[in-house]
């Protein structure tokens, strides 16, 4: 190896880092300030907000990593191309323990930091982040004993919503009050569905025989999309509807009005059930 060649080595490295720094300096603010506020699922609930923060932070962290790798590759393509047209051997470099160690330490540090940060946001700052936690939730927000329970009952291919604290009132429309902690109890009558309230930042599988609990606290009123996020058969794509976040008085008025409207029919029907599982079947289908 000539001295000229070895003198070039640091120059390549410095150039790559400089290009990368410039690109990152451009990309990072764009991600945080321009793209960030538009990243899903918005800011309607504190849970949705925590998911958006996670998405912003991950994008802002991962895009520079991608840029570093891409910069390195593209730089190599341009600079380390074989220009002779023939077959020329490169320098026999078999590896460098220092570089490898540095890489392991760096990636290891990033990964551990991500895992710690992810666990922290999941458990401490967002209390389950709107995800379904099963029948005995571990990440409970303060005051969860007083949360408004709303049961979400999935079946092929419709949602029913039930308000146990309002006399077991049932509805095919979902509304929740704002600035109130709501506990969704998601279950299914037939097969596995998944309750996805996009703007609320709630996703919880609806599994037969399971009470899957997810907490949410809406910050302001508005509409949100409901989807089924687990393939459930023929009309899976059509288990979509719109839900509403209402102010507390509007919410109570809505329930009252709906109850009155239903009363005509309701008196001929059995009282609302509090058990949501069919009698054991030997085989369904």
């Amino acid at each position, binding site marked *: 190896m000539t001295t000229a060649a070895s003198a070039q080595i640091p120059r390549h490295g410095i150039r790559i880092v400089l290009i990368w720094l410039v690109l990152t300096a451009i990309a990072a603010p764009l991600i945080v300030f321009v793209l960030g506020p538009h990243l899903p699922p918005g800011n309607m609930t504190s849970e949705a907000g925590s998911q958006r923060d996670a998405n912003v932070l991950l994008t802002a962290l991962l895009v520079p990593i991608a840029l570093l790798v891409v910069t390195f590759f593209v730089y190599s393509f341009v600079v380390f191309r074989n220009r002779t047209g023939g077959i020329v051997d490169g320098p026999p470099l078999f590896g460098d323990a220092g570089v490898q160690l540095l890489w392991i330490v760096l990636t290891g540090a990033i990964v551990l930091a991500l895992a710690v940060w992810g666990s922290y946001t999941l458990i401490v700052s967002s209390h389950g982040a709107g995800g379904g936690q099963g029948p005995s939730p571990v990440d409970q927000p303060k005051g969860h004993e007083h949360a408004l329970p709303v049961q979400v009952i999935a079946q092929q291919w419709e949602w029913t919503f039930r308000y146990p604290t309002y006399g077991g009132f049932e509805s095919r429309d979902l509304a929740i009050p704002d600035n109130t902690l709501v506990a969704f109890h998601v279950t299914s009558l037939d097969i596995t569905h998944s309750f996805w309230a996009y703007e609320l930042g709630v996703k919880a599988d609806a599994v037969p025989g399971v009470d899957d609990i997810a907490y949410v606290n809406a910050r302001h009123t508005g509409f949100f999309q409901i989807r089924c996020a687990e393939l459930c058969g023929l009309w899976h794509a059509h288990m979509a509807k719109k839900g509403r976040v209402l102010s507390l008085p509007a919410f109570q008025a809505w329930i009252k009005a709906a109850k009155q409207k239903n009363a005509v029919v309701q008196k001929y029907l059995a009282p609302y059930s509090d058990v949501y599982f069919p009698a*054991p079947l*030997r085989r369904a289908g």
Partner: protein
Amino acid sequence: MDASVHTALPDGVEPAELLARNVRLGARVWAASVGFFFVAFFFAFLYLRALDTNGLWRGWPHHHPTPSMGFGVAILVCVLASAAVARAAAMLEPTRRRVGAIAALLLSLAAVALQCAQFSSLGFGPTDAGYASVFVGWTGLFALFLLGTAYWLATVVADVSGDGASPAFQAAAIEAVSFVLIVLAGIEIAAFILLYLVV
């Protein structure tokens, strides 16, 4: 390694020494695969038992399946004995190997036969909820694997009787079968503890 490794053999078969190594290692990998297969049933047992969905793990109300302990013990004994005999046969000198292999084969077949007998007088069926499902699936598939291993043992017996394979290969083959049988015996012990004792 002898010189024959380096020249092609006329019938396209690798040297006996290499075949012996292959069958020994192959048996170990296969045993690991079989182990992971039954891990699924092991897990199913513990998982369904712990969940006890709708209180139906032990069966429908007033109908709790209980397989007969006599059959269970008999099957366990046959499987353990088969593995032990096969293992011993692997260590015997060539002339006595044949007897050992035949004995192990018969014991394995006896276990399969006992399992069939138990099924025909079980007193419950696959439809009797959680435990019954795991019981029927685990024991049934175990019998199937045992039958397959019995076939392998039978080829070993055939080898020892005829002139099908070289002595080096025969020794390796019976050692290999015995290894798989030992792993199966381990699985059977787990099955016995869970399916008959823990329930």
